[in-house]
């Protein structure tokens, strides 16, 4: 789900961006916040960085000796996206394998739904492989599936998440395919 978070960060401004006119300095701080927010991509607790919404406050700057840079403590609001164990979401299937499918949900690309967590489904190979069930719609490429998150993993090096999904439970499963 989406989170609206308030984050306290320290922003370092280079001496050449320090201007007597306060407006340019504020712009430099905002640009720096946007740059760092974009570069960090994601946070292990907050999820994927989506957008900065507002700059709440800028504290007094502290000059760093030797470099002449100034460190400003800032507080800003932002939108992030994360998924949590026990959460129910809808994902779109983008890869189908014999033992399960991979789905994407928003910025999250690696959500794995194992065949062991798809009760009643069996794999049907072919040019367009899919999982079929006598009582429910099939699960194939580009299908929408409502699932529950049963596990998550944060990959520090890649700064991304992986997740495990399950269809075990009432009101979980693929949505009917749109009629052509």
């Amino acid at each position, binding site marked *: 789900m989406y989170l609206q978070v308030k984050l306290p960060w320290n922003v370092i401004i280079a001496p050449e961006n320090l201007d007597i006119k306060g407006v340019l300095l504020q712009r430099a701080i905002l640009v720096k916040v946007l740059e760092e927010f*974009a570069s960090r991509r994601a946070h292990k607790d907050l999820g994927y960085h989506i957008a900065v919404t507002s700059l709440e406050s800028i504290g007094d700057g502290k000059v760093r000796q030797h470099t002449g840079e100034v460190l400003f403590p800032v507080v800003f609001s932002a939108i992030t996206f994360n998924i949590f164990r026990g959460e129910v979401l809808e994902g779109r299937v983008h890869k189908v394998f014999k033992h399960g499918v991979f789905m994407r949900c928003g*910025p999250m690309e690696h959500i794995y739904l194992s065949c062991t967590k798809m009760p009643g489904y069996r794999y049907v190979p072919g040019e367009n492989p899919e999982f079929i069930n006598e009582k429910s719609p099939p699960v194939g490429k580009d299908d929408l599936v409502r699932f529950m998150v049963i*596990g998550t993993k944060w990959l520090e090096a890649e700064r991304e998440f992986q997740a*495990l999904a399950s269809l075990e439970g009432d009101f979980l499963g693929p949505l009917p395919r749109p009629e052509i």
Partner: protein
Amino acid sequence: MEKNGKGFSMPKSSLKSTPSKDDSSQKSKEGRKVQFNNGGSPEERFDYSKSNGKSSSSADKGGRGNTANVKASKSKEKEPLELRLNQELLKNAKCLMDCEAAEIIQGIQDQMTLLSQDATIKLPVSFHKGLQYSQANARYTNTHSVRRVLEYPSYFNVNVLTKLPSTLKKHGVVEGEISVIANACPESTEEVFALVPSLKSKKSILQEPLEVALMVIKPLRKVDSTSV
């Protein structure tokens, strides 16, 4: 941090996530089986026990929390999976419904069309996917009304005017659960309790307010809404 094996707990549940010894025997009997543990890096684990209100930062807790988590998860392995958000995280965070997020992110997108000429302004790589997903899942025509209804359903029930107003939050429904309910667009209270098992214990109290809430928000749904 994950590679040293610390910080992840592996409950011995029906998920069959035990080490390769069992997996190999199963492999020979039933052919290839999906393993949640990759053979090449057995230390990598998925965190199955971030819940119970404890910190979701499993790496920070390290091995100290492993034993407690395994024991807790063993005792709860038959219980339905419940949504649990890190309470410490939520001190500075608010859970949004997808429709609320769509409005906010679309507003930023509109501003970016003016700011895009400035090369110094950078957007996160997840921005466009976040925008797309939120717009596809924005299933209500009036997000403010949906939020009010889910938090104060009794105000909309003309049959209980003489009663004190009750709120879902008053009965312990947290923000994250309200977001899950709103995003799922449930047709019935049965569906709500199935998708949010943590509310089952308060079913007798929540049944009526939830029925009212679902009845009121149903007309607020968009006619055609597909998610991405």
